């Protein structure tokens, strides 16, 4: 007798009684509605963000540990820097313990999203792409490209650059700006990358250096004999604190702390200490 059974893998639809089918339909519909309700409901945790932190009595802050002068390891193997100081300030004002977690540029947003850290405090710049996935606080510190030089040279304006020599990396923002603002007697020596540019300045082949704050931070830290310091600003692009999307309570509190610190001069003193310059005009 020929086998009438269907081949393996074919779904067999047995006819059912109307009552069972109605029950199944009702269950399915309830399930669907419940699912939709869950999706669209405003999660109550959004405003638990601040109270969650207070409850666990500590806040996990993502900092950089290889990015002087914002975040780096001091000789005692404790993190220090402008960002670290601001992170500590936030924890202190919240009245909780600060857990400093080293993060890197690629992993800091994923760490934030997966709750490994509660806030990003590591030279985070604001742009539209990042704003799609995290929320930003108000700005708390400048990040900038500037001119650096030895203490013995006095550079207060672009005109003071006349007759000097400066090292800059070809094709960077600093290079473009120098082209526009520098006096014609400034000798601009361009190198192919940051390391050659810094090498030229450190070996005193050029008197001045135009580069980003972080690169200069490393160069100055590693070469104290050059006695270099910040001289003139070329472009500003400040630091913001990053928080998870929707954690409005925590972010509002952080903004309140930052605004207070700006008003009473704490942020300015940090900038003076770690960057050698004032806050300048920080956007909101």
């Amino acid at each position: 007798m020929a086998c009438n059974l269907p081949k393996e893998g074919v779904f067999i639809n047995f006819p059912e009684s109307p009552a069972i089918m109605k029950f199944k339909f009702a269950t399915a519909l309830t399930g669907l509605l419940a699912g939709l309700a869950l999706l669209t409901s405003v999660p109550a945790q959004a405003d638990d963000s601040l109270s969650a932190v207070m409850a666990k009595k500590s806040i996990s802050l993502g900092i950089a540990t290889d990015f002087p002068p914002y975040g780096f390891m001091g000789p005692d193997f404790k993190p220090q820097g402008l960002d670290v100081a601001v992170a500590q300030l936030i924890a202190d004002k919240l009245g909780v313990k600060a857990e400093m977690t080293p993060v890197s540029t690629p992993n800091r947003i994923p760490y934030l999203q997966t709750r490994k850290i509660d806030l990003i405090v590591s030279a985070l710049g604001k742009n539209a792409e990042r704003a799609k996935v995290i929320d930003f606080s108000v700005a708390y510190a400048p990040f900038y490209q500037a001119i650096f030089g030895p203490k013995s040279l006095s550079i207060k304006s672009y005109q003071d650059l006349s007759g000097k020599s400066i090292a800059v990396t070809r094709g960077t923002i600093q290079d473009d700006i120098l082209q526009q603002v520098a006096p014609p007697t400034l000798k601009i020596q361009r190198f192919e990358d940051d390391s050659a540019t810094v090498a030229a300045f450190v070996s005193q082949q050029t008197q001045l250096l135009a580069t980003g704050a972080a690169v200069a931070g490393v160069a100055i830290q590693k070469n104290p004999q050059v006695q270099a310091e910040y001289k003139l600003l070329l472009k500003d692009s400040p630091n913001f604190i990053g928080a998870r999307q929707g954690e409005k309570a925590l972010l509002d509190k952080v903004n309140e702390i930052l605004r207070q610190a700006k008003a009473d001069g704490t942020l300015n003193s940090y900038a003076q200490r770690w960057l050698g310059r004032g806050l300048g005009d920080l956007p909101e």
Partner: protein
Amino acid sequence: MSLDFLVVLAQWPMLLKGLALTVLLTAIAAPVGSGLGIACAWARLHGPSWLRVLVGSYVELIRNTPFIIQLFFIFFGLPALGVKLSAETASILAMVLNLGAYACEIVRAGIESTPPGQIEAAKSLALNRWQIFFRVVLPPSLARVWPALVSQIIIVMLGSAVCGQISTEEISYAANLISSRTFRSMESYILVTLVYLGFAVLLRQTLNWAGPRFIFGR
């Protein structure tokens, strides 16, 4: 892909300045380097043994290290010893030292291939050591190795492109700068390639014409 040479050619003052510096670097490095090479070749063959060791070490050091490393050493490293040279001076020095080492070996090969009869004949005519070297041995030696020496000079001329790495504003530096400003790298580099090609051919023709005429006789 459309090529827009006009954007690059609009920067012709910068390109011309770069070419002028390349020509200048070569014009100084070629004779000085060749002269150094001839002196070193003599030292290796006829000098006292301490001089032979010294020159031998210099030649081996230069021939077995990359030019860019030699250049970086002179520009970035010497200031630590208190010797600070400008980018252009450092470039010329590096090119002279580089050519000197290679030219030493090339010229030495020419000198060593002098038939001994020439020297015997010169001695029998009571010529002194210097006359023998400069009048009897060197000119025919140079004639023999002229193609190799000219090639080495061209190589060092093309090597001047590396000097842009220490901010010497020769033509490769100009091309790099133009391409990073206009984002037309293809056009910049095609143009500069043609310039190098033209200059190399011109230099070779000039040296091949000048050699027999001025240096070693027809």
